[in-house]
């Protein structure tokens, strides 16, 4: 360790060691499943099926990837996931940003009521079946639009951004108002640029929850050509071993249900890994530094 440990008391040292151990365990617990799946996806079908893979691929092969990438259904679901993620995230931001701004303004009539109205949904909701019936009655079953707008507003994200807007000094709004800006200009030219870190955070939350969105897509979508990647993955795990076309190839091809599943998972993770660094730069703090003096 770089720091001079002599400056710390015994208790501090024990605390630091305990924290390091916990972080280490957490890192392993998070990272290992990923490494394991990646290793399985690159392993020969026999080793993968027999559970011999622990950390590194055995009988390394790209066969599972070749199989996955040659499946039109895989590409179809991949495209669907992109549609749900991009469409859903944009829709969410279009609703959440103005909504959070309005809820953060002291001049909003009935502000306490509206805020309570939104927060209420954090703790209580109608539940699975009423929601399903609601979607059915709105003719939103088995449709792209249903998935995109049905889950566009997330109260948690709304409140997160509202809190951030509230934390910005009121004088920014007043200064912009004196400069002649209307509400939309104030939001667009002042509050949104100042809120990049918070907006990046909720954007990432939206992207990840859309990308990994599985349950409702499974419940609401029936057509195979509309299902997202996560549902396709579930179909693979559940039904591939019963697929005679597939099982017939197992004797000649070095892949298995396990390595194909692994390959789909790895393929589904890659876009999130690519997006993350771009968004992460906005997480830096300090963008507000110097604008106002408290």
């Amino acid at each position, binding site marked *: 360790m770089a720091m001079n440990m002599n400056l710390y008391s015994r208790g501090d040292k024990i605390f630091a060691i305990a924290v390091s151990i916990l972080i280490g365990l957490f890192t392993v617990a998070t990272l290992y499943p990923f490494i394991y799946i990646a290793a399985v996806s690159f392993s020969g079908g026999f080793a993968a099926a027999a559970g011999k893979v622990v950390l590194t691929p055995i009988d390394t092969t790209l066969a599972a990837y070749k199989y996955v990438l040659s499946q039109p259904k895989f590409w179809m679901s991949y495209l669907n996931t992109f549609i749900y993620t991009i469409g859903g995230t944009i829709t969410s931001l279009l609703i959440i940003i103005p909504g959070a701004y309005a809820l953060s303004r002291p001049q909003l009539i009935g502000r306490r009521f509206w805020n309570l109205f939104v927060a209420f949904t954090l703790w209580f909701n109608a539940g699975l079946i009423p929601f399903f019936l609601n979607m059915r009655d709105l003719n939103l079953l088995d449709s792209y639009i249903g998935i995109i707008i049905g889950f566009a507003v997330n109260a948690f994200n709304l409140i997160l951004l509202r809190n951030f807007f509230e934390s910005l*000094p009121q*004088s*920014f709004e*007043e*200064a*912009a*108002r*004196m*400069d*002649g*800006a209307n509400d939309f*200009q104030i939001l667009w*030219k*002042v509050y949104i*640029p*100042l809120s990049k870190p918070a907006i990046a955070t909720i954007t990432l939350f939206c992207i990840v929850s859309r990308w990994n969105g599985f349950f409702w897509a499974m419940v609401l979508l029936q057509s195979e050509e509309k299902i997202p990647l996560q549902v396709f993955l579930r179909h693979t795990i559940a039904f591939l071993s019963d697929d005679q076309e597939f099982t017939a190839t197992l004797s000649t091809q070095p892949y298995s249900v396990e390595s194909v599943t692994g390959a789909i998972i790895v393929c589904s993770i890659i876009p999130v890994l690519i997006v993350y660094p771009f968004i992460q730069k906005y997480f830096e703090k*300090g*963008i*507000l*530094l*110097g*604008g*106002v*003096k*408290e």
Partner: protein
Amino acid sequence: MSNVLINKVVKSYGRLEVVHGIDLDIAPQEFVVLVGPSGCGKSTTLRMIAGLEEITDGTISIDDRVVNRVAPKDRDVAMVFQNYALYPHLNVADNIAFGLRIRKESKEHIAESVKEVGEILGLTPYLDRRPANLSGGQRQRVAMGRAIVRRPKVFLFDEPLSNLDAKLRTQMRAEIKRLHKRLGATSVYVTHDQVEAMTLADRIVVMNGGIIEQIGTPMELFMNPANTFVAGFIGSPPMNQLRGNVHKTADGTKVKVHDVLFDLPGSLAVEEGQEVVVGVRPEHMALTASADSFEIPISLDLVEPLGSEALLHASIGEEPIIIKAETHGDIAHLSGVSKVYAPASLVKVFDAKTGLAINEQASS
């Protein structure tokens, strides 16, 4: 240029009334300073002129147009905020240009105006810096640049110097005054610092508890405070206020404070035995007698040297009194002071009950 007319303006938040019907007429090109302790309603008044607070009752007019229901952007006023409120994501040039862009001015006009304002305020080398990379004084200048670039009818300043250190404050104070001379726009300036008020104002408006205590030029307020509040607010240190009773003698009307008789100027409408407060400015007392001065025996507690002057903290009986005396480079001679002299013409008398000044009657 314009004038601002405040007519019986009231501001309430729910049932709480914070400004109680004030009247103020601000002339074109005038520099008016609203001064008073915190919570006196001065900032609220300024924000009502700006349009950031609704006016509960009464009217505010700018250029003979009632603006009660006019949005801030349509009032042609600009405001400098206490915390600057610079947009952190924009550089200096964009901060200054923001209002012009919103108003869809031409690119050439914007570039020219920003350049000109940059030169006026000495910001030219910093135009592409962000606020975070500026010093406090530079940020303050950008905030002013944002206001002056639009050439508004009225400038509003909300305690603009209160976040600066003492040295910078003095410097910026002079700059604001210079700027006002150069641009000549009507200015309303809010501060709790009476030194700022005295140095900047054409006229000072002293506010307290949501009412106006007195309006006048700095020297009027200094020489003739309308009441004990103004007497105690203006001046550093403020006017000494000593409780006493009116004593009519063969030698004229006097006020007895403890056992010291204070001479009074001219003839005042006071009655024998009336409880009054006499006011004497620390700088109006001297260690040596002069033509119309009278003697005040004091018991000296403490000498505070300030350099060319020193403050003598003393008392007359129970009543504390502060005297400002010249040091002439040495304070040794001040430690033995047992009496001072005050000219009768500079003594003020206030009614002890109402606190209002009792002025000289017109000589008959």
